[in-house]
């Protein structure tokens, strides 16, 4: 029996990140100042980003792992969101006496898991990447050990996450039984060659995948965990997991549905169209009644999963590129909004930190954060000249061209509804007086430099992409060419 050693060049970024994260875990034992750990993890992410850029496209491990423009695009999203999450974490953790080096290792490992997911060309690799990402994120959600809310959030995330991966595995086992293969492109050819398109078991497997990925991207009716988990988890972790794992879920979803189950496109569109509409409806309508900013942003994140699903439903290369474009824009505006929530954080004050009422009169007391929040809220609503408008515009345009006019009509209708709760925050900030007896929140001048950097980057990106989207669009278009 001859054993051929696989070519390791394509997995270099992931290998580097995992080894770096493990090494960081060791080095951290001798580091007293956790800011240094955070700094090292940022350097690791930067180097990983550079290796992603310099790694040539290729396939390794017998076709289980493929590097192409599509996976690289998603890897940039993951690295970017991880770096921004690390930057905003320091003070939040310090104020709760939970600043441990493991936090940064877990973020790095979770990022490595997402990168493996984006590159996965085999159902086994998808599962492994997904679990590496999910297991790290469960722990991150429960990182504030002394707080019941954080425990509860981790527990709910864990239970429903494990439940959904069981569905994914059952789907994989059915596909394997039918086709005898787990490689995505070979599954596609096996399905068309042996005439399995109308096989009810294959449709079952498809449904299992929809359930599993629906849980991961928090699409209705599989969204129930999201509000509780997002509310209870530490805010920087919420910012991270509302962007990274969601984008990773979409990356895998597009690959599985467009590559492996390509010949079932009519079937999965039929399943996904009602899910997308329901997701937008649930997210936008329930967000109207929220009194907690993190919970409101959780429902908003559900709604945005619905918008991104439209790009997937379109099923064309252009639609996928619009989805990718939207996901990166969403990363900027959402992390920006969460950074404002972190700036206004008051430490261990029981439960009052994240109330929506805290935003009342913010423009008078803290004009700069209020203005930035205004930009992010406009962008999340989709008002020009912000990036959110551009993202939605291209998403909807491609869907109309592909003939899904009614889905777009629903999306536009629900975006109008969403304006109410996003602009309510703006109204609170600019048109109401601060509440009496409120403990004053930390101001911009006392905020750590790292959060200021994130706010500057996100706000600039949101405005820049809104005015000049061509560069990003071209990049997304090139990356989606594999479909």
């Amino acid at each position, binding site marked *: 029996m001859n054993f051929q050693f696989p070519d390791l060049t394509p997995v270099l970024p992931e290998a580097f990140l995992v080894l770096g994260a493990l090494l960081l875990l060791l080095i951290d034992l001798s580091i007293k100042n956790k800011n240094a750990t955070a700094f090292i993890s940022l350097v690791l992410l930067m180097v990983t980003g550079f290796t992603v850029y310099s790694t040539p496209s290729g396939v390794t491990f017998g076709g289980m792992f493929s590097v192409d423009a599509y996976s690289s695009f998603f890897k940039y999203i993951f690295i970017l969101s991880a770096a921004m999450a690390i930057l905003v974490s320091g003070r939040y953790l310090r104020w709760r006496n939970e600043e441990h080096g493991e936090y940064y290792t877990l973020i790095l490992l979770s990022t490595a898991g997402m990168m493996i997911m984006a590159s996965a060309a085999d159902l086994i690799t998808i599962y492994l990447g997904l679990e590496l990402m999910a297991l790290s994120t*469960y722990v991150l959600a*429960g990182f504030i050990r002394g707080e019941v809310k954080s*425990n*509860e959030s981790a527990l709910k995330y*864990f239970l429903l996450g*494990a439940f959904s991966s069981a569905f994914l595995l*059952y789907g994989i*086992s059915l596909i*394997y039984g039918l086709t005898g293969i787990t490689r995505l492109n070979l599954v596609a050819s096996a399905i068309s060659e042996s005439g399995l398109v109308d096989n009810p078991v294959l449709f079952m497997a498809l449904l299992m995948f929809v359930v599993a990925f629906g849980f991961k991207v928090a699409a209705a009716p599989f969204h129930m965990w999201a509000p509780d988990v997002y509310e209870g988890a530490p805010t920087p972790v919420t910012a991270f997991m509302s962007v990274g794992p969601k984008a990773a879920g979409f990356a895998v979803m597009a690959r599985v549905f467009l590559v492996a189950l390509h010949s079932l496109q009519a079937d999965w569109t039929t399943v996904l169209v009602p899910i997308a509409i329901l997701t937008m409806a649930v997210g936008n309508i329930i967000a109207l009644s929220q009194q907690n900013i993190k919970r409101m942003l959780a429902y908003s994140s559900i709604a945005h999963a619905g918008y991104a699903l439209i790009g997937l439903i379109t099923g064309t290369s252009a639609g996928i590129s619009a989805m990718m474009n939207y996901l990166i824009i969403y990363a900027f505006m959402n992390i920006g909004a969460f950074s404002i929530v972190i700036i206004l954080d008051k430490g261990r004050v029981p439960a009052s930190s994240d109330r929506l009422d805290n935003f009342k009169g913010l423009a008078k007391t803290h004009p700069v954060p209020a203005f930035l929040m205004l930009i992010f809220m406009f962008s999340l609503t989709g008002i020009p000249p912000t990036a959110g408008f551009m993202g939605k515009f291209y998403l909807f345009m491609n869907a109309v061209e592909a003939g899904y006019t009614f889905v777009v009509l629903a999306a536009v209708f629900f975006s109008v509804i969403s304006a109410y709760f996003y602009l309510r925050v703006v109204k609170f900030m600019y048109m109401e007086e601060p509440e009496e007896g409120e403990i004053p929140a930390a101001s911009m001048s006392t905020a750590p430099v790292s959060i200021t950097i994130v706010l500057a980057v996100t706000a600039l990106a949101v405005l820049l992409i809104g005015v000049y989207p061509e560069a990003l669009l071209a990049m997304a278009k090139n990356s989606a060419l594999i479909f």
Partner: protein
Amino acid sequence: MIPVTWYMMLSAAIFCIGIFGFIARRNVIIMFISIELMLNAVNINLVAMSHYLQDMRGQILVFFIIAVAAAEAAIGLAIIISLFRNRATVHVDEIKEMEG
């Protein structure tokens, strides 16, 4: 020889029992065990198919699933313990800090 469809039916039955246990029971530990049941249903399915197809891939995936399930158990129990230290309950209906 037992036909492969019997194994598939067994697997489907155990998977459904797992789903039912997860939805119907309110004890966190039992819910967690139900998830393990679902994972093992998948393992039966994969091993049976792997034998039927005379292909190793299914068994390789089973090894991965077993390893990941072990890691998952460690993390899940750690989360349950840290919650138990604060609340002294394993009943999901009592774990409701956040609602709405």
